[in-house]
């Protein structure tokens, strides 16, 4: 059935190059998560605010992020903004697209987490003389973080997987991009991409495990 001779050596020789790519992948994922978390917090505050405009803006962001493909969001950054004369590099458009996606999903998670904390908790804090800000910061937010922690780590794994989409807009320094460049030179598609798959898998598992470890340290109740 297989008239094909696998050449794993060639792929393994490229391993250092691919690991460099994996570093870029992690860098984009972490950056996009950092941006996403900050924006998600802002969107959550917008949603809680009294202003209809701010609430509408936040809802629109969340719904677009959740109801269109991540690849579409990256295309919007890469091609769509061209209509305004803005031409982002593959790196920037990939980062922007993933950060947009992260922010939307995380904001939705935060909203759910907030809803899960009964308002009697904040009230109990208020009755001890805390300001509403204190009650929010000292009582609501820590509990919210625990509820949102698992979704946040899931989103982190998603972000790592999403970075592979950069190759479709010409990204060539992350793991998928490096792999594709090697593939274009050697046509050893299966070997290179199989190796990439293993690296992605290991990264995802390490991140998940690390998150579990952190969670067990952080949340002992």
């Amino acid at each position, binding site marked *: *059935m*297989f*008239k*094909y001779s696998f050449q794993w050596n060639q792929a393994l020789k490229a391993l250092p190059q691919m690991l460099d790519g994996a570093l870029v992948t992690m860098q984009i994922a972490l950056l996009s998560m950092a941006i996403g978390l900050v924006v998600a917090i802002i969107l959550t505050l917008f949603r809680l605010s009294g202003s209809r405009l701010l609430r509408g803006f936040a809802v629109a962001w969340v*719904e*677009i992020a*959740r*109801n*269109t*493909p*991540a*690849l*579409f969001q990256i*295309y*919007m950054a890469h*091609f*769509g*903004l*061209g*209509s*305004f004369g803005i031409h982002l590099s593959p790196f920037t458009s990939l980062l922007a697209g993933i950060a947009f996606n992260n922010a939307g999903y995380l904001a939705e998670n935060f909203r759910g987490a907030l809803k899960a904390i009964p308002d009697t908790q904040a009230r109990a804090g208020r009755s001890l003389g805390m300001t509403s800000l204190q009650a929010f910061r000292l009582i609501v937010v820590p509990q919210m973080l625990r509820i949102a922690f698992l979704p946040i780590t899931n989103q982190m*794994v998603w972000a790592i*997987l*999403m*970075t*592979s*989409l950069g*190759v*479709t807009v010409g990204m060539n320094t992350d793991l*998928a991009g490096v*792999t594709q460049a090697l593939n274009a030179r050697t046509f050893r*598609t*299966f070997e290179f*991409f*199989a190796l*990439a*798959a293993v690296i*992605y*898998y290991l990264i*995802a*598992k390490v991140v998940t495990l690390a998150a579990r470890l952190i969670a067990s340290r952080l949340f002992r109740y």
Partner: protein
Amino acid sequence: MFDTSLSWGDIVFLAQGAGMTLAVTAVSVIAGTILGIFCGVIRVQLGPYWSIPLTFVLDIFRSVPLLIQLVLANAFQSIAKLGWPPFTTSCVVLSLYTAAYCTEIVRGGIDAVPLTTRRAGRSLGLSWWQDMRFIVAPLATRVSLPSWIGLTLGVMKDSALVLWLGLIELLRASQILVTRLQEPLFILLICGAIYFLISFPIARLGGYLEKRWSPND
């Protein structure tokens, strides 16, 4: 409002792309769900320990980027001289991808049926199959349906990646028009709106069902 050179033919082209998106999604979700139910029941029957190999394999589909899976599958079918067209390859990969998630949903649904309820069924003399069919399935479906709807929408959105294998689905169709007409924002907005129109109502339905069927109210 827009001064556009988008023609009727182009809109039909986009619609065909959307049709491709829906076709790939439908085939994958149906096949993936059947496989997922099968694997989910096996997982529950074997228990967490004996199903470790199955869990491990399915987990790979959730931990490796879908794009890489598609490329790998395509390379594999060409190496193995299977002669699959891109549509087949795409559907096979997306079905396995769906099945991997669906298995977890099914397992969660079955686990949510209290053991006492199942015992009650069995103690009335129902067979394993009858218990599954008349007690477990209806209850588990209720628990699982919202997540399953979410999964379906996820697959619909992720199906955009099959453009990498050369299938002209909605996003690829838009990209072709963008290249030709040089109106990226306008065309991508139409594309996004189509995705949104397919996804949003179904997502809302899922949210509604989740609220209505949540066990504690």
